[in-house]
């Protein structure tokens, strides 16, 4: 964690700085794909740039969702593994009220002030790459404050490797109440970018709905992604 503290402003300044960069005209890939139901599971296996809408199977509303992120640790290098070029991906969630960022959950602020969104903790090196979540963010949708209407999940490469260089990286959205995977993205071997705006969960009527976004972007932490996030709200 120490390596991160000096490079990231603390939470308050993160929210109060005006969005510095104007929205760059990077292409966000084609949008509006269709439901892709490959495989036996109902999991929607996304290719980058697809946007789909999901509702809980059976039409009900989601109550608890988890965004999981996993990747394979870099191969050990150097005599004692000290010179391994560690790969550190970070999952973050930004809470919006009417397009205004209100709170953010990331490795330096693990629980949203209202307690509804929780990060399970920072993983600096990755895991076995066998499909397990190395970082996860849990959202208790029933406890999200009434004015929060959208929660956006993002993934950043803190150490700067592009997703091309990361092995077995994925992120997925899971319905935490029954463990069912709602959407999964494969990140590795992809394009030359260091971040992805994963998905948003937003209020529809009295319940919640999830829209998978999967838009590539560039940036070290979620702050850098703000301009890229805003068009998706």
């Amino acid at each position, binding site marked *: 964690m120490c390596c991160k503290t000096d490079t990231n402003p603390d939470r308050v300044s993160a929210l109060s700085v005006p969005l510095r960069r104007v929205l760059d005209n990077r292409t966000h890939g084609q949008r509006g794909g269709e439901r892709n139901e490959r495989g036996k599971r109902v999991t929607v296996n996304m290719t980058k740039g697809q946007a789909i809408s999901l509702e809980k199977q059976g039409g009900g509303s989601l*109550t608890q969702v988890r965004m999981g992120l996993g990747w394979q640790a870099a191969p050990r290098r150097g005599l004692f593994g000290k010179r391994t070029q560690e790969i550190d991906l970070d999952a973050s969630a930004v809470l919006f*009220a*009417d397009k*205004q960022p*209100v*709170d953010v959950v990331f490795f330096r602020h693990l*629980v949203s*002030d*209202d*307690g*509804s969104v929780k990060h399970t903790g920072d993983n600096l090196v990755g895991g076995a790459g066998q499909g397990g979540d190395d970082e996860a963010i849990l959202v208790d949708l*029933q*406890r999200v*404050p*009434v*004015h929060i209407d959208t929660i956006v999940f993002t993934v950043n490469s803190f150490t700067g490797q592009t997703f091309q260089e990361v092995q077995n990286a994925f992120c997925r959205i899971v319905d935490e109440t029954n463990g069912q995977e709602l959407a999964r993205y494969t990140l590795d071997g992809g394009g030359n970018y260091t971040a992805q705006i994963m998905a948003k969960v937003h209020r529809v009527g009295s319940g919640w709905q999830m829209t998978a976004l999967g838009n590539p972007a560039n940036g070290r932490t979620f702050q850098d992604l703000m301009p890229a996030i805003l068009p998706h709200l």
Partner: protein
Amino acid sequence: MTAELVRGQNHPLPDTRLEIRVSAGHPVLAGATLGDEQGRVPGAEWIAHPGAPSLHGVAVPEEAAADHRLTVDLEAVPGAVHRVSVLLALPGARGAAGAARFGAVAAPHVVVAGRDGTEIASYTITGLDSESAVIALELYRRQGAWKVRAMGQGYDGGLAALLGDQGLERPADVAASILETVAPGPAQVAAPTQRVPEAERVRHTAPVTSADPATGTPAPVTPSPVTSTPVTPTPVAGTGAPVTGAPTPATGTPAPATSGAAPSGGPIDYSHPRRRAATPAPAPEPRQAPPAPVAGDASGWSMDERLYNQVWGMFEDLARTAAAYRSACDFAESRLDRELDETLSDYRSRVGGANDSARAAARARHDELVERAQAVLDRDLAQLAAESAVVEPALPAAFARWDNPVWHAYRVPAEEPMAVRLGDLHLPERSELRIPMLVRLPLERGLWVDSGRGRSEAAGLLDEVELRRLALDSAVAHTARLLAAHPAGQFAVHVVDAAGAGAAALAPLVESGVLAAPPARGAAGVSAVLEQLTERVDLLQMALRGGAADALPPGLDAARQLLLVHDFPHGFDDRAVTRLRYLADEGPSVGVHLLMVADRQDASAYGPLLDPLWRSLLRLTPVPDDHLADPWVGHAWSYEPPVLPPGSTVLRQVLAQVAGARR
């Protein structure tokens, strides 16, 4: 929902027809005494025990067994009886085989259930040691209704001492005759009888007008010697004694001589005795209806720790739910501002009523959002208030408010608690919802009761003299609590009161004799106390750093020290101030703590030099003040100092106990 009681906690009884299930994991004798209003048992004929198993609506098993089922019909209890004490005794206590102390057997678990088997309350009697008899529960009348209280009152002197305590004459003889009835002998060794079918057993209890739970007919219970009340399968499963399993108390268990072995007549029950209450898995409740709160509903190794964690959990919950509410209100406010601005800047709408209606719509949107946020807040606060209502009465003395009855039963503890309560915290959203402010022991930093005016409103209304008096009063209350929290002789208090201005407020400490020495007066007294403590800290620090804790002089006591400083900096020269700062910095790590009662203004001559000292202390106030922040969100919480009930003598009583325990 079963209420898991802690010692001393009471619980209302919705039903007068009760079943009390005991699982001890070891053969015990179960009985009940019927007492009058004062708790006195008039005679041996008012004791239900294996030799006289049924009595005025109370029926107890005839054998000593590991699992018991007692039945009580409170309506059949005579009007003169105000208290039914359920007692357990170890039959081996009289020299026969078997354990002679509860400390050597599993903690007995007692469940109070309604006649239909639904559990009302349960209680695990922990903390027993050399006792061989214990009052497990007490059922008592309170304003016409019956309640149950978890007692856990053990007696080293066994059943005789227990009965003697209830005012019985010749308790030893009575106890002996009771224990005789279950003494291992040929007559009592019940052969492992074959299992009697449930239906047949019901018929056996001939005089019992059985209340069929299904039909719900409230039939009066006429306890018979072989009381085995009809039970639905559910409660049986609940006791962990499977219907098809071990012999029930009614059919008899092997004599206690087998010393805790599983009843040979049935399969061995491998289930954990404490887990039994949890066996009937309650259907998961819908999220919308949170389960009834239970005290101690948090993780931890001991009840103290569980309550501590629960209180901190409530603290965090309140902070977070208030954060959600405030954030929603702020957002509603800012959106309203923006929308009002927009209507003003829209030239076209300025003419005509469009403007007004747009503004009304904006206001309506604001109000609607705030209303929804308020509804969520109210729901959460109601849940926390309900939790607080069960947690507060269950708190041990160190965590409890001074008006908690637990202080009247105060005894000097054998070991120090995890934490002490230094006051209450609340938020303006619901100022009556108070969170105990629990601070871990040993104190990590010194305390400072600010007798200055500060910025608080409440302090502004008081004159200076009054404020100083209140400050010293609350410092004395903190001191008394710290003294009460520590085992006898483990906490020494030194007082510095250079001008003697605090003599009246310090009187409870001085008169009860809990102080190490009379309050130090004058410059000489101040420097003597400071020098003594400085030397101590220096010595202990040296020993600690050198890893030579056993090389300390033998005369040095291991007690923690508290220095209560009144009227700072009166009587302090520069040298004394330096010593005080040394104590504040170096003292806490070796158990020397500081409690300052001071107004920063008085020490203004020192300029900024003392700022680090003030900052290193935990600031408390003698009047409500909002200067404390929580660690999660950083709200400003209103701190409420501890208040002794007016006219209460509890402080002096507690101090007298503390002083008495040292002798």
